[in-house]
C-alpha cells in the first residue's frame, strides 16, 4: 500500500490546466517541452554515492595487496585472480539473466570484488577448474540463492574458500614459495606457511620484517601486511569503512595471544606480533570481516563482532587442528550478525541516562 502511495507521489504532475502555467507559457517563460514538474517528498538532493563507488573504493584499496601478490607469486597469481574475477561476474550474469530472469546488476562491481577477494584467499598454484568451482559456490550458493547483493548472510568469498578448503584439502594447503615474478604456475615450488610451521611442519620461520613485507608462503593476497595496511588507510580516508571491526579484531588477537604468551612462554612460544602478521588475519580483518552485508550495522555491534572473530581465530590457531582459523571465525560471527543487530542498538540522541 505504501508503495502505491509513493508511486503516486513520484508521478509527474501535469500543469497544463494551471492558469499560471498558461500565463508563463504565453509570456514565453516556459517551453512546450517543459510541461511536467516532478513532485516528490524531501530530500530533493542526493550525495551521489552509489554501490559501484563503494565497491570501486574497496577494489582500489586492494591494489597494493594485489601488486604484492603478483610480485611474490608471479604468473600463478595473475591466472587465478583473473579466473576468479571473470567467472564470478559471468556466473552472476548467467544466474540473473537465465535463472532469476531479472535485470542484471554486474555493473555494480560487487561480483568483481567477490572474485578478487576469493582469489586473494587461494594459493596461487591452484588449478583453474578448482578456482571456477569456488567462484560458482561463492556467487551461486552464497550470494544469488539468498537474493543477491545485500541479502546474503555469509561472506560469499569466504564461503567459496571454505568450500574449497574442505573439498580439496591437499591442493588448498600446498602454498607456493614466494619467488619474485615467478614464471611457474602449477609446478611452482611449494613452501609451508609460518602458521603451518608452528603446527609441526619442519622449516624455519621467516624474520618479522619478511612477515611484514609478505615474503612468506601463503594465499595470494594475504601475505603482505604492509600492502593491506595501506589499503586500510585508504578505506578509512574515503570513509568506506569505519575502524571498529578491523581494530577490534587485531586488538583482540594481540591481547589474547599476548596473555597466552605471558602465562606460558614455552607452550605458546610465538609473540603476539607473529599472530598479527601471519595467515589471513590482516586480509580477513580489513577486507573480509568488514563486508557491508554480513557485518553488524552500528559501532557497538561492530566491536562485539570483531571481538568474537578475534577470540575464535586464536582458539582455532592455538588449540585447533587447523593451522589457520580466520575464515571460520568470520563465518561463525556472520551467523551472529542478525542477533547482534537485534540486541545491540546504536547510541540514541537524548538517551535517558540510567538512574
Amino acid at each position, binding site marked *: 500500500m505504501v508503495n502505491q502511495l*509513493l508511486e503516486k507521489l513520484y508521478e509527474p504532475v501535469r500543469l497544463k490546466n494551471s492558469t499560471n502555467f498558461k500565463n*508563463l507559457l504565453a509570456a514565453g517563460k516556459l517551453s512546450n517541452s517543459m510541461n511536467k514538474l516532478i513532485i516528490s517528498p524531501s530530500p*530533493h*538532493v542526493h550525495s551521489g554515492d552509489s554501490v559501484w563507488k563503494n565497491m570501486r573504493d574497496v577494489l582500489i584499496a586492494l591494489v597494493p595487496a594485489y601488486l604484492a601478490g603478483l610480485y611474490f607469486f608471479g604468473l600463478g597469481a595473475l591466472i587465478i585472480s583473473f579466473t576468479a574475477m571473470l567467472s564470478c561476474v559471468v556466473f552472476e550474469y548467467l544466474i540473473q539473466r537465465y535463472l532469476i530472469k531479472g535485470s542484471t546488476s554486474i555493473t555494480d562491481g560487487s561480483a568483481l570484488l567477490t572474485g578478487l577477494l576469493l582469489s586473494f584467499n587461494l594459493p596461487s598454484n591452484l588449478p583453474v577448474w578448482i578456482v571456477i568451482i569456488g567462484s560458482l559456490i561463492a556467487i551461486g550458493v552464497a550470494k544469488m540463492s539468498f537474493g543477491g547483493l*545485500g541479502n546474503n548472510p555469509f561472506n560469499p568469498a569466504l564461503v567459496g574458500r571454505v568450500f574449497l578448503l574442505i573439498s580439496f584439502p591437499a591442493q588448498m594447503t600446498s602454498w607456493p614459495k614466494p619467488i619474485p615474478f615467478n614464471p611457474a604456475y602449477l609446478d611452482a615450488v611449494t613452501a609451508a606457511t609460518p602458521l603451518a610451521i608452528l603446527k609441526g611442519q619442519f622449516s624455519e620461520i621467516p624474520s618479522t620484517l619478511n612477515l611484514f613485507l609478505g615474503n612468506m608462503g601463503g594465499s595470494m593476497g594475504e601475505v603482505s601486511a604492509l600492502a593491506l595496511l595501506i589499503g586500510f588507510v585508504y578505506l578509512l580516508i574515503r570513509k568506506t569503512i569505519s575502524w571498529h571491526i578491523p581494530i577490534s579484531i587485531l586488538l583482540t588477537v594481540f591481547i589474547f595471544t599476548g596473555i597466552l604468551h605471558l602465562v606460558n612462554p614455552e607452550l605458546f612460544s610465538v609473540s603476539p606480533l607473529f599472530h598479527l602478521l601471519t595467515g589471513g588475519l590482516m586480509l580477513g580483518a580489513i577486507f573480509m570481516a568488514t563486508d557491508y552485508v554480513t557485518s553488524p550495522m552500528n559501532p557497538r555491534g561492530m566491536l562485539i563482532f570483531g571481538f568474537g572473530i578475534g577470540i575464535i581465530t586464536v582458539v582455532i590457531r592455538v588449540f585447533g587442528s587447523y593451522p589457520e582459523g580466520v575464515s571460520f571465525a568470520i563465518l561463525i560471527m556472520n551467523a551472529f550478525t542478525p542477533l547482534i543487530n537485534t540486541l545491540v542498538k546504536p547510541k540514541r540522541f537524548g538517551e535517558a541516562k540510567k538512574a
Partner: protein
Amino acid sequence: MKTFKMGGIHPKEYKFSAGIQIQTASIPQQAIIPLGHYLGGPSLPVVQKGDKVKVGQMIGQASGFVSANVHASVSGVVNRIDVHLDASGYKVPSVFIDVHGDEWLETIDKSAEIKRECTLSSAEIIKRISDYGIVGLGGATFPTHVKLLPPPGKKATILIVNGVECEPYLTCDHQLMIEKGEEILVGVTILMKAIDVKRAIVGIENNKKDAISLMQKLAKTFVGIEILPLQVQYPQGGEKQLIDAAIGRQVPTGTLPIEVGAVVQNVATLFAVYEAVQKNKPLFERIVTITGKSLKNHGNFLARLGTPLANIVEQAGGVPEDTGKIVAGGPMMGRALSSLEVTVAKGTSGVLLIPALEAARKNMQNCIRCTKCVVACPMGLEPFLLMSQSERSMWTEMENERVMDCIECGCCSFACPSNRPLLDHIRYGKSIVGKIIRTRQAKK
C-alpha cells in the same frame, strides 16, 4: 569549533544568492493569504467579502493557544474567502484581497530608525508577539508565544538564536543578519527580557564569516549576547542539534528543549519580534530566497505574504527552461510544488528551481547494509530498519525503535548509496505511529 556530535552530512552548499542585497518584491494585484499555514490550529477569518482592509490589519484570528493571528499584507478590498493551493499541496482557506494602493495602519512606525530601548514588561512583550501573529520563520512556523510560555515548573535559562541556515542554497537568514544585524540583536534582548534569561547564544555556521564578524562587532554593544561560530554540518539548524552544538546538552527523547532550559528562535523570527515590539508592525512580510542552478538573477526578496511565488520568480528572471522541480524551502526539507500559484506564507524561506536532469531520483537498489544511514542519522536511529518495518506495517516495532524521534532531516535518504527512499517510508510510518499514539492517549 563547535558542532553537534551525532550523525550529520555535508551537502554541497550552492549559496549562489549569498551577499546579494535584499530587494523588495513588487506587490501583486491580488494577494492570497492562507489562513492555516502554521503548525497548530488554523485561524478563523474576521473579515468578509467586500471589506476594506489596510496593511497590518488583522484578517484571521487564532483559534486556540497553539495558533496564530494573520494580518493583511496589502491594502484593498476583500475579494472572497476561498480555498487556495499552498506549499503543502493541499488547498487551504485563504483570504483573497484585491490590491488598491499601499495604505498602512497609522500605528505602524515606518521609519528606519533603530529603537533599542524596550519599555514593555515581559507579559506585554509576549502578548504583543501573540497578537501580531509571529511564528517561527525558520520553516516550522510554530507560534512563537507558545515557546515563550513554558509549562508550569519549567524555567528557561538560556536563549539560543538560530542563525545557522544549514540548508544548501538558502541565504535569506544570512542576508538578514548582514543587513539587519542590530535589529536582530535588539530582538534578542527583547526576548531575553520576555523569558527572563541573562544569557543568549547566537549560533552561526562558519560559511557565513561576514555575518559572524559583523554580529560579533555588534554584540559587544549588548549585554549577555554571545556570537558562536559553528562548524558547517547539516542539520545544525535542527532545534535539538543546535542546542547540542551550543551548550553541549541533549534534549531527552520525547521532551521539549525547555527540559534543558533552552528556548530556540530563528534570526528571522527575532527580526519580526523587533518589528512587532519596537515598530508596532505585525508579521506580514518576510525574506524569500529565489535560487537555482539555471536561474539568472538569484536573489533575496522582501515579499508580502500572499504574493504568488510566480511573481517573485518572474522578478528573478523567470522559470528557467530546464526546470524539472520547484521546491518551496531548501533542498533537504523543502516541499516540491505542483504550481507557482502557491503564495508566500510565513514559513516560505525560499524557492528553489531544480534542473530536470537533477530532479528525478535514481532507481532504487537493494540495501547493501553499509550503515551509511545509521552514521548519518543525527538522532541515532536506524533508518534501514525503520524503512523495512514501515514496508511491513510493523507499527509497534517502529514505535519501540523510536521512530517518533525522527526529525525528517533527510540525511538517511541523502547518504544512501542504493538510492533507497528511506525517509519516505519512515515518514509514512511515523504518521501512522503518531496516530496510534494519539488514539491511545485519548482512550486514557
